[in-house]
Every structure is written in C-alpha cells, then in structure tokens.
C-alpha cells in the first residue's frame, strides 16, 4: 500500500475527521478488534485506506 506524504498536521486532521465519521457510525474499512474510533482511524491511516485527502493550494507540496 502506498503511503502518501502528509505533514503531521495533515495526518492529525485526516485521522481526526475519520475518527469522527467512525464515531458517528460510518462503515469501517478494516477488520479490527478495537472499538475505539480513534484507534480504528489510526489503523486505517497506517494502512492508507482513509478516503480523505487534503487540498493544497497556496503551498507547493514537499
């Protein structure tokens, strides 16, 4: 699985947004034992399956 290059702020936002979705009942993309939405989101982030990305306009991405 390809790991996209995000800054730590972008990772935090993405994981945060995904954890909120999971908390509110969104279907989970991975098989997991965990019931903590944040842990699930982090695991999804690690695997790169979160369907969220960032829009970079003003900056050039590194």
């Amino acid at each position, binding site marked *: *699985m*390809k790991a996209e290059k995000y*800054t*730590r*702020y*972008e990772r*935090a*936002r*993405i994981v*945060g*947004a995904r954890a909120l979705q999971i908390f509110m009942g969104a279907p989970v993309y991975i098989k997991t034992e965990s019931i903590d939405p944040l842990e699930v989101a982090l695991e999804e982030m690690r*695997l*790169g*399956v*979160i*369907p*969220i*990305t*960032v*829009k*970079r*306009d003003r*900056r050039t*991405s*590194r």
Partner: protein
Amino acid sequence: MSLSEEQREQISGLGLPQSIQEALLDGLENEQFTKAQFDEVIGQVKSDYDHAGVEPCEAVGVIAAQSIGEPGTQMTMRTFHYAGVAEINVTLGLPRLIEIVDARKIPSTPTMTIRLEPDYARDRDLAREVAWAIESTSILHLGSIATDLAEMNVLIELNHEALAQRKITDEEVAETLRSETGLAVEMRDGMLVMAPEEPSYRELLQLVEKIKRLSLKGIDGIKRVVIRKEGDEYVLYTEGSALKEVLEFEGVDPARTKTNNINEIGEVLGIEAARNAIINEATDTLREQGLSVDVRHIMLVADIMTCDGEVKQIGRHGVSGEKASVLARAAFEVTVNHILDAAVRGDIDDLRGVTENVIVGQPIQLGTGDVQLVAKRRDEVIQ
C-alpha cells in the same frame, strides 16, 4: 575519479540549495568512490536536508520568538565589554540585543573593526599611520590652548612632535581655524593667536570652546582608534562609526571592514548586507553570553526586519505597527486608539492573519487549522 556529467545532474536534481550543492560538489571532486558510495552520500545529504527543514503550517514565528526570548531572560542586564587592550567599550548583552531588534538609527556605542590591506596589516608603522589619518584630531591632540585676558586673545601652542606624528603642519591648522571660525589667525613666536570679534570675556570663552570642538584632520565621527594585533595582522578598532568615509581610505580593506551600526551598513552596502549584519550581530551578542540560538530563528527575524527594503524595527514603528489588519495592530498596543481610528476611516479587516482570527474565535491558519480536507476521488481510494 572526477564526477561524471550524469552524477552532476543527479546532484543538481536533488532540489538542494546552491550552497549545499556546491559544498557537495567540492567534497566529491577528486575523491575515490564507487557508484554505491556515491548514492549513499547524496542520499544521506538529501535526507539530512529534508530532516532539517520545517513542515508546512509550522508556527515558525512563535518558535523563533520563544527560542530567542528564553535565552534573553538569562542574559546579563548590563554588560560592557572592553574590546582590545582597553578603553573602547561596547554595549553587549540584553541592551545590545534590544538595540538590534529596535533597529536604532545610531547604536549607543558605535564601533568599527577596520581591517587593512595585506601591506598595511603587517606593518605596525603603516597601520598606525592609517589610524592617525582616520582618527578625528582636535586641537587638544596637537598642543595646548590658553586665553590671554589682558589682550583678549586665544593662544594656541602647538606641539611639533604631535604635528609631525599626525602629518599636519601648523599652516594647515591655521588655515582650518581660519575657514571654520572666519576669524584672523596670526602666527606669533611659534604660537597661533586668535581674537574674538567682540573683545568680551564671554566671546573669548565661547571661541575657546569652539576651537576645542573643531576636527582638524580625520573623520569627524571617529573619536578614538585603537590598534590591536590579531594573529599576524594589525586591526584597528574605533570608537564612533563612519563606514562610508573609512572605506575610501588608502590601506583599508573594504571587504573585511565592518561597523556595528546596522542602519549605516544598510545605507552604504545595501539591504542584504544589513540583513547579514543583523544576523551576525545578534548571534555574536548571544554567543558572547554563552547562549546558542539556532541561526534560522535569527535569520527569520532579520528577514522580517529587512523584507521591505529598509531596516524596520520589531515593534511600534515597524513590523507590529505596520500590520495590515486593524485587529492585529489593536492586539499589540493602544487597542482603543487603533479601533477608533479604524472605525473613523471605515477600515475593513480581511481576517487573513493569525491574531485576527484568534480574536474573532475562528480556526487560525496554522498547523491543523490550515489543512483543507477533501474526499478522495474514487480511483484514489485503496480497496
């Protein structure tokens, strides 16, 4: 083995700054290495460079402020350093740091470090000649001054040894006095005699004071010059600063001569020299106190101070006072006045900066607050 064209291209393709690229090329030139070693070297340099960089959205300004502010609390409140043999004192420590960020027009103790061309730098006598040519010479250096109350005259007795040493003749002294005061100067038994316009006691004393203040030779602003041997060359330290004039002197090495007056550097050598001067002066002041601050923090401050093409202070009359946003300025000082003036003028605040958004309670454009999330396109989503 020298570098192949392909390897050079590989280095320039890394996206490193010019100076690092050059250092890399210099280091690799005429070295023996295999392909794998070459890849390892440039790979390591690239990853170290990326590691040293700062991530987008990082609050660099706040970090710089903290990184300079904290060591600032440990600085001595009032320190004077005696540069060289003795006597020339230079403001250092916290007062000097404040002076630098305040971009004062004239520092409290202006000083210059004058380095000489190779021929002059090695020869003590030549160095001393340059020093005497630069140092502002008053009548008190050359002799004594007295008043004759009976005749209502000012008598100047010149010491001929001092005259010879400073390469000035008594005719020259007389000529300067004549043109500066507009009065007649007579030579009487080796003494210069002058009389004030009105033969009054007050006029006489005023004339004496005026003569004492006159600069007969050298540069007006430079009160003293001290010669000091550093390594195998003689270096001149001055009290007072006049960069433009000093650079024109015979024997002075213009590339290695500096002053601690940042504004003067900005005027004479340009804004980029002023930026470098801010960086050097601030780093030296901190280092002298045994504090080490990463240059990049100081570089950021220097950049902010000079990015408009002139040296601006950090504060009321500079960076903070010239912010575009009303709310940002109001947050800094005299809140009510700024808001009132803005209301009278009908100013508009675009809420682009950090401070304004903190005030109105919105997310700020920093860190996670500056990340815009979008849904991935379907073909981007990993199944």
